[in-house]
């Protein structure tokens, strides 16, 4: 069975600074996808970034980038130039390739961006 662990329940960062959220996962499979989702108070889950396990290059989306370490089963999210609108709960998620598309989520990290 696959598991996802986020060891930081809460984090805070000053506006314009950089913050890194940690995620580790466990699987015996080699083909999978990893995601970071953002959940603001509106409850809607918003996809932030996606990484295919077969790709060695780390994914980047504007201010968001990941550090994907496949051997260590680590998938951290770096947010650069943090903005007040980044305040939200962030979830790391795992999905097996070629499977049902079911996502397995971590427990989440609440990020507070302070002015």
């Amino acid at each position, binding site marked *: 069975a696959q598991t996802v662990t986020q060891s930081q329940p809460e984090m805070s960062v000053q506006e314009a600074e950089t913050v890194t959220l940690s995620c580790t996962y466990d699987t015996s499979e080699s083909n999978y996808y990893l995601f970071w989702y953002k959940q603001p108070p509106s409850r809607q889950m*918003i996809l932030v970034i996606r990484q295919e396990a077969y790709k060695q290059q780390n994914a980047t989306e504007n201010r968001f980038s990941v550090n994907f370490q496949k051997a260590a089963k680590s998938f951290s999210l770096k947010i650069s130039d943090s903005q007040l609108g980044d305040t939200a709960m962030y979830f790391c998620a795992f999905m097996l390739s070629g499977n049902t598309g*079911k996502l397995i989520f971590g427990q989440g990290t609440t990020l507070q961006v302070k002015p």
Partner: protein
Amino acid sequence: GAGVSQSPSNKVTEKGKDVELRCDPISGHTALYWYRQRLGQGLEFLIYFQGNSAPDKSGLPSDRFSAERTGESVSTLTIQRTQQEDSAVYLCASSPQLNTEAFFGQGTRLTVV
């Protein structure tokens, strides 16, 4: 509509009553998922539909929970004889095909009193 729509947005029910939660996926999306999110927790998978069949029901917590889907359209999650531990946000997501981005609705917050 443009996104996944869930109704009602909030539901308060008395213990022991049955509730129905509705999900309208994005038009054309064949895959549909239900997740449960307890307060301050991550999302737990409940059930997955491909078209109107449910190949994976492994996450349904008990036989009080059931779901159905009409064609590649609306899905209904039914909870019978609700218990206080059923209180949570129930989120629905749809995707156009496997291994692609899942688009989430805003969820239904269920409170059992």
